[in-house]
């Protein structure tokens, strides 16, 4: 027996060693998930090896930094001043850019809040130095000089200013193992910025990075940016990942394609990284402060740019320029300085006849009233007297209907010509329409309430249909009253805009008859009266003043 062991000692040692390691491999492969932590024994072995290897690494790394610091801090300062100026200009440009993007960011935050999306903002990061790598191209891992004592924990994301790097896999007391995104066992949820196509970023052999199992899409082109989607619950969404380098078919899944990615961060030349130790649902205070500061600086920069632009504009008058036909006296008064050296504003000439297109002729929308008629409507004030009269009992039903119909139609009757017409009065201000059908002494008064829309608040836009006839002769009581007359239609020649017309309702003769077509009175609801009106009954000659003989019954129309 002894000779057997001594004879096959080497082979037996080999077999024992191989079997032991195979068993260890089998135990390790039984891990529930590829990203789950190692077992205790495995972690202990890793801890021992890392504790032995990393201190010399750290010493050598620090020694290298010291030498590099001496070189860069004392000897290689040739272009520092130019670079400083360039960086300052770059910072100003970035502040402006950030200010312009701030509003978009706020809008995006509002929208995400509306949609109840969970947005994760980076609260706190911890800078760390990369002190070593795995040493093989089969395992894409690096070591950093921060660990549990510095507040790190497994699965914390690691990024640089350029993009994501990886996540913490094993965390020791003063060092941590970072699993890079280029490792075949890593996985990051990503989304293409342009097409919003989602996928999983994994490492491929030879250090490549791929987005696997992507549905074929013609819109996916090389050069498109890839961002984190936040779906892996490790990386906050929106961090840059890289760009699409090329699209290649997936050898295992035929219709699907793989995207070869150029990582945004230089994974092969990592020096300093940031470990994201805390994320939250709202931007951090510092981020909000920075945002406000950059926004204020952007506004100030825009104001300076405006001043510079104003200084570059021509400031002297051209002596050959034509004189202003309507100079504005207010120009230069507010500043209290002479405007001789300033640009003189050209004021447009005043219109000879103002219309709705003239400046300030149209009210602001907030000052208008719905339903109010505008041009070409003239508003005037008219003194009218409500008519109270005794209704004869002999009035026939037909006459009542006719009178009511007349009142509802609101036939246009001018004050001067209404002597022969039926005395129908619509008191707009009170919201009461009083129609009086009068065929001689057997007149009927029809009254119905009606809402009236006010034209300008002071006077109602109702229409008045007056019977200037001799109300006194009929025994009616008259009280001086003011109503608003809105005249619709084209202006008669020689009639000034806005002129008001007063009609004496006390029985005095109206003015001379107007030969031209007189304006019509529109009802308070804004509707236009019918084009063909029923002629008013012919008044009695006795009740008509002499001066109104030639007045047409429809008011001179």
């Amino acid at each position, binding site marked *: 027996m002894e000779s057997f062991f001594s004879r096959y*000692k*080497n082979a037996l*040692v*080999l077999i024992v*060693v*191989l079997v032991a*390691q*195979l068993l*260890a*491999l089998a135990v*390790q*492969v039984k891990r529930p998930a590829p990203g789950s932590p190692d077992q205790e024994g*495995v972690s202990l*072995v*890793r801890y*021992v*090896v*890392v504790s*032995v*290897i990393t201190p*010399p*690494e750290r010493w*050598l*790394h620090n020694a290298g930094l010291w030498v590099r610091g001496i070189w860069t801090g004392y000897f290689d300062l040739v272009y520092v001043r130019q670079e400083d100026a360039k960086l300052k200009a770059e910072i100003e440009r970035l502040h402006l850019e950030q200010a312009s993007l701030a509003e978009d960011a706020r809008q995006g935050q509002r929208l995400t809040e509306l949609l109840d999306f969970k947005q994760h903002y980076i609260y706190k990061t911890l800078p760390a130095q*990369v*002190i*070593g*790598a*795995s*040493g*093989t*191209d*089969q*395992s894409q*891992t*690096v*070591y950093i000089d921060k660990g549990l004592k510095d507040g790190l924990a497994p699965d914390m994301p690691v990024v640089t200013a350029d993009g994501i790097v990886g996540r913490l*896999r*094993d965390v020791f007391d003063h060092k941590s*193992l970072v*699993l890079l995104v280029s*490792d*075949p*066992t890593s996985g990051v949820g990503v989304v293409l910025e342009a097409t919003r196509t989602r996928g999983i970023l994994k490492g*491929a*052999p*030879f*250090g490549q990075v791929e987005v696997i199992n992507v549905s074929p899409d013609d819109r996916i082109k090389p050069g498109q940016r890839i961002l984190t989607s936040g779906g892996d619950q490790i990386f906050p969404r929106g961090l840059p990942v890289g760009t699409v380098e090329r699209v290649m078919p997936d050898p295992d899944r035929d219709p699907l394609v793989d995207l070869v990615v150029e990582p945004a961060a230089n994974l*092969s*030349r*990592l020096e300093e990284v940031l470990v994201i130790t805390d994320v939250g649902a709202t931007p951090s205070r510092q981020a909000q402060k920075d945002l406000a500061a950059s926004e204020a600086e952007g506004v100030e920069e825009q104001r300076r740019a405006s001043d510079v632009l104003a200084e570059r504009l021509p400031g002297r008058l051209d002596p050959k320029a034509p004189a202003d036909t309507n100079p504005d006296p207010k120009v230069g008064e507010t500043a209290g300085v002479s405007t001789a050296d300033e640009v003189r504003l050209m004021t447009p000439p005043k219109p000879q006849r103002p219309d709705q297109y003239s400046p300030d002729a149209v009210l602001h929308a907030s000052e208008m009233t719905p339903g109010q008629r505008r041009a070409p409507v003239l508003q005037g004030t008219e003194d009218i007297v409500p008519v109270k009269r005794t209704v004869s009992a002999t009035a026939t039903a037909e006459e009542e209907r006719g009178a009511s119909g007349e009142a509802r139609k609101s036939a246009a009757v001018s004050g001067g010509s209404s002597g022969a017409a039926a005395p129908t009065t619509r008191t707009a201000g009170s919201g009461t329409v009083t129609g009086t059908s009068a065929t001689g002494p057997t007149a009927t008064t029809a009254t119905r309430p009606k809402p009236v829309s006010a034209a300008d608040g002071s006077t109602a836009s109702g229409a008045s249909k007056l019977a200037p006839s001799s109300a006194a002769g009929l025994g009616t009581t008259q009280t001086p009253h003011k109503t608003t007359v809105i005249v619709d239609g084209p202006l008669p020649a020689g009639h000034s805009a806005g002129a008001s017309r007063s009609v004496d309702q006390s029985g005095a003769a109206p003015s001379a008859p107007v030969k031209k077509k007189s304006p019509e009175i529109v009802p308070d609801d804004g509707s236009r009266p019918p084009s063909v009106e029923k002629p008013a009954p012919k008044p009695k000659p006795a009740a008509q003043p002499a001066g109104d003989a030639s007045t047409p019954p429809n008011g001179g129309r």
Partner: protein
Amino acid sequence: MALMASTRREVDEQSFPLALYLVVPVLVLVIQSLASKHFPLFAMLDLPLIVVIYFAITRRSPAAATIGGALMGIAQDALTGQPLGVFGICKAVIGYVAGSLGVRIDTENHGMRLLLTFLFVMLHNGIDWVLVRHLLAEPMAWSWMREPIRAAVNALVGVVVYALLDLAKSRE
């Protein structure tokens, strides 16, 4: 045969200072880790494998080379994210084969060292590929263009490293 270990001097078991068995592997692992961080192409080299081959062919003890190779491989595994034992198995096999061949052939010849290292690196990578691809079922590519180049580079560097380590050798 010139390639066979025929002389008494070649057959002698050569030894090194005890500290060298500890310092050299640690130093190699540190250099491998640091250098591949700054120079990504350096990951193509496998300095621990070169050291395992050297100690195996110079010590001419397959059992010691097997254990030494296994320990070196496990240490290398511990620095990576992969399970412990992948490199351990590979380097244990390489150590055993190199230790066995070291008794029979002349390992002082630089050409022989170059050829042996080339073959051992190819074998190491082949075992590694089989273990990772078929035992662990993890993605790993094999390139017939890349692997010979890698083996050749390792062999060239190995010859230089062997010459350096020969300086520390003490004959009994």
